[in-house]
């Protein structure tokens, strides 16, 4: 029962992340919403799997996948935002400040 609740919370956060992916205006903001909600949502689903299987072999695998997913998603987000900036994707129209412009060249 607890595992079903955790999985429902995870799917809900994934839904917010996908709405943000479709609705927000530029690459950097989409990356913000997609990375945070996608990661915590999927981590919550994996925690549900861990509680359902218990600390047996399948549960341990879910436990291993959580830190892998966490650090993988953060490092991938960092690489993507840096790559997008060097590729020349402009910040959106609503942006107010850009300290990185002089360094990137």
């Amino acid at each position: 029962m607890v595992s079903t609740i955790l999985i429902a919370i995870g799917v809900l956060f994934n839904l917010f992340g996908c709405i943000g992916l479709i609705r927000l205006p530029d690459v950097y903001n989409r990356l913000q919403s997609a990375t945070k909600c996608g990661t915590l949502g999927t981590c919550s689903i994996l925690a549900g799997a861990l509680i359902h299987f218990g600390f047996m072999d399948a549960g341990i695998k879910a436990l291993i996948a959580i830190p892998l997913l966490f650090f993988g998603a953060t490092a991938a987000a960092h690489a993507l935002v840096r790559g997008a900036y060097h590729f020349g994707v402009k910040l959106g129209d609503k942006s107010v400040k850009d300290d990185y412009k002089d360094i990137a060249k």
Partner: protein
Amino acid sequence: MDLLEILLYIQIALSASCLFRIIRGPSIADRMVAIDIFGVLVVGICAILSIISERGFILDIGIAWVMLSFIGTLTLAKYLSGKKLNE
């Protein structure tokens, strides 16, 4: 119908909505963000599927998918910033 199955179908529909951004995205970077998140959602699908079918080995597929999508995203990001792969 079981609640878990409904959640599984919702998760599959969410990853299909990422395909919208992959097809429509105005620049390459948008498409890569959507591909990255698509990989994360597929891991969620693997976890729910392993609970429904009571087979633990599907979680192995999830772990392999996490690592491969991470390496793929890093490689594509390197390509975006205009560098060779060994820099």
